[in-house]
């Protein structure tokens, strides 16, 4: 009989299906980082003076900072001078105006990744701003968005076309010297997405960006800024898959969200960077700073993430609940296998009155992997009527993995109600036997049970993303019937 743990472990030992390398020449800067490199990045992107100055200040601050060591992760020291801080596909100079102009090899890459760009865009009504390495190469549905007054473009474009908006909001949520990796990003960020939704506008479609890393030794420093003005709504989807590589690659992105009065931002992520091989060789270091500012009253920011990839994940999408009655949400599934390490969670900072936050974290650990939830709920003295509920569940598959929870609660207001619950469990032999007695294979049974464990989070994802997320866990679709 094969319900023993070894076999269960086999089931989660699936090979990374998206591992291949596309052979495209890239025009990269040589490895290394100094002020000249930053000037070169800024120059290539034709940035205005204020942007260069901002980058340089960030760089100078970064030089004085030390790399954080508090996370429950271990990795050899990173040589920041061995990283190349800029690379772009050769076709950079004449950017394609439509998909027809896009390098066919690139399109083929997307196909291999299971992202049929044009088809998906047309069928799902999604505008796709695909970032290949560091530069945007295709943007669709722009017209429809501009009719609604929504600005959705690459960050580089925004810097040139909407400098006043960039100036006003860049660094207003994640300051230049917020943390070591955010500072580094501020100095060298390559590109990313910019979204501005004007007052009262409900963005007519889900906005989506696919990131990947495809050049050896190329750090990825994405910068995303989303501003939802008063009474607006936007749902933004971010998804990642990365080709198989042996060298570790650093990814230090920064995402800033600003929600004004009555505005709502929904930010969903499926992260599937290359996790390294079965022996823990290679894989992406995903050190990301994501933060949302509920700046106005009644605003809402909701983070949903499905983290399956990366050798190391260091990521705490957070909400600053500044506006009265504002709401923050964090729904997370983090899956680690082999030698992956994840230290992820959220911060909910309650400042305004009657603010509320919800945290649902589902961690799944298998193989020799380590999975940590780290979260902070802080209720400031003036935050009357603050509410938080945190549910933090861990599922262990196998004997050599770890599941950890480090929740911080700092409560300085007597009207606050804060509740935190956490559980740890494994897939029970009884559950497996029950499913198998109904004729379901062990593999499907494990998928089914894991999927059930994550259901609360998957329910928060937009439909097409939920499908992808479940596929990522190699789980059959649930809830299609009934």
């Amino acid at each position, binding site marked *: 009989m094969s319900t023993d743990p070894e076999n269960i472990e086999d089931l989660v030992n699936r090979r990374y299906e998206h591992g291949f390398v596309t052979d495209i020449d890239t025009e990269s800067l040589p490895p290394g980082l100094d002020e000249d490199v930053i000037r070169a990045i800024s120059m290539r992107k034709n940035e205005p003076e204020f942007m260069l100055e901002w980058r340089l200040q960030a760089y100078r601050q970064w030089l004085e900072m030390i790399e954080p060591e508090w996370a429950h992760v271990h990795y050899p020291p990173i040589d920041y001078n061995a990283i190349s801080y800029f690379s772009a596909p050769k076709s950079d100079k004449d950017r394609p105006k439509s998909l027809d102009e896009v390098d066919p090899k690139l399109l083929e890459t997307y196909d291999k990744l299971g992202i049929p760009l044009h088809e998906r865009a047309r069928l799902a009504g999604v505008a796709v701003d695909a970032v290949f390495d560091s530069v945007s190469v295709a943007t669709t549905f722009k017209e429809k968005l501009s009719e609604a007054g929504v600005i959705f473009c690459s960050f580089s474009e925004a810097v040139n076309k909407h400098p006043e908006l960039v100036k006003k909001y860049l660094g207003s949520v994640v300051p230049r010297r917020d943390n070591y990796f955010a500072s580094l990003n501020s100095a060298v960020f390559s590109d990313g997405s910019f979204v501005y939704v004007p007052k009262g506008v409900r963005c007519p479609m889900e906005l989506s960006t696919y990131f990947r890393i495809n050049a050896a030794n190329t750090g990825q420093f994405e910068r995303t800024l989303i501003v939802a003005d008063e009474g607006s709504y936007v749902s933004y989807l971010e998804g990642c898959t990365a080709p198989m590589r042996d060298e570790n690659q650093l990814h230090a992105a920064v995402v800033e969200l600003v929600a004004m009065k009555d505005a709502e931002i929904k930010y969903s992520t499926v992260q599937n960077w290359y996790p390294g091989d079965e022996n823990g060789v290679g894989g992406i270091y995903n050190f990301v700073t994501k933060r949302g500012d509920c700046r106005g009253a009644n605003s809402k920011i909701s983070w949903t993430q499905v983290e399956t990839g990366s050798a190391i994940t260091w990521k705490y999408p957070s909400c600053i609940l500044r506006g009265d009655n504002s709401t923050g949400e964090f729904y997370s599934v983090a899956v680690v296998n082999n030698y992956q390490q994840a230290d992820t969670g959220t911060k909910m900072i309650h400042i305004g009155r009657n603010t509320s936050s919800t945290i649902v974290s589902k961690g799944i650990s298998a193989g020799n992997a380590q999975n940590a939830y780290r979260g902070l709920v802080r209720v400031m003295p003036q935050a009357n009527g603050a509410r938080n509920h945190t549910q933090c569940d861990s599922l*262990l598959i196998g004997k050599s993995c770890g599941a950890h*929870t480090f929740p911080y609660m700092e*409560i300085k207001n007597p009207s606050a109600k804060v*509740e*935190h619950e956490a559980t740890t469990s494994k897939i029970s032999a009884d559950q497996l036997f029950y499913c198998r007695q109904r004729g379901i294979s062990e593999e499907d049974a494990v998928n089914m049970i894991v999927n059930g464990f994550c259901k609360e989070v998957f329910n928060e994802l937009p439909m097409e993303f939920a499908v992808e997320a479940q596929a990522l866990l190699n789980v059959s679709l649930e809830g299609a019937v009934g």
Partner: protein
Amino acid sequence: MSRRSLPIDALDRTVAALSDDALAEARHAALAQFKKRGFPTTRNENWKYTDLSKVIELSRRSLQTSTDAERPDIDRIRELQASIDAGWLVIANGKLNRDLSTTLDEDGIEVSPLRLDSKDLRLEDPLADLNLALLKQGLSLRIAANRSTDRPIALLIVDSAGTAPVLSQVRIDIELQANAEIRFIEYHVSAGDDEHYSNAHINVIARPNARADYLRFQDRALHHSQTARLNVQLETDSEISYCGIDLGGRLTRNDLKIDILGQGASAIFDGLYIAAEGQHVDNHTRVDHRVGPAVSAQEYRGILNGHCRAIWNGKAIVHAGADGTDAQQANHNLLLSEHAEIDAKPELEIYADEVKCAHGTTVGQLDEQALFYLRSRGLDRDRAKRVLTRAFATSIVNKSPIPELHDLIGNAVEQRLRELATGVPQ
């Protein structure tokens, strides 16, 4: 001199003045380590929310004046001793007071000067260094195999300083041999309103199938600060049932560390802290499940009013291979003032899969439905609140392990809650 250390010459002088006994070598080794590390600072994750600078300042003044403390208030102690039927060990200002202690010459209880083996000298906690370096007198208790008694042993830690600030160290090692049972009370009081900093360090080793009921009750004066560490090692099928109650003190920091070394061991530990104006109470617990099956369960409750701060940090570590572990943590807090702060952190680190681990933490107010229920039965709102607040606290008192002290502690808790409600200082 760094902010977190003490003047070296005064330290040297103080240590040199202690008697040249069997501990001398250990003291010097500990002193050397303490000089290197000093007190922990808030940059240390374990001390993130507790700043020792006032304690350091007091220690500094104490070392520089180094007057011998006055005798404690004997009448008050005798009164307390009369109210609790126990064998008494009284430690006043860090020294065993033979007049006030009762002889524990019952069969199977051996009290002797502290014996240290070499592994005691590798200390991970700088406060343990300080403790050993400045220790005037330590005690070892050995409870012989198979011995059990109904009559508890009460350790009374009483501090009184007279006019100058005093720094005192307490160190007790307790070994329960196989199948032994002990009921133990650790009772902290102040005999005076003077400034004092007490640093206590107690180690318990429970050999196979031994059992300890352990009640710690702290009702110090508001000018007293203390740091206390209790290390417990549980061997096969041994058990500890612990409850720690903190009502007084300006700064209180408790470190409770439980090591589960044997299968079938069980650690139940609960706590209650009540803090009002100017108080700071920090409970750090850590349980290491090194083997399984074994059980640990903790519930801490806190009530806070006025400018005060409480910290609860509960950590359960399930080591690789500790299958069959059941570790439960709960922490509930009532925050009654806009000036009060609670920092809670329930941590789990799990490296085994056959485990049942859960924690729950809440911060909030009294249950509105329960309040309504009581009011519908005719109680006014204030009365109903008092009833529920008391019930919130007494649920811990009532499960504390020395039942004959429930009344005494319940009364002290009630008294403290009345002071807390009316804002009258202790």
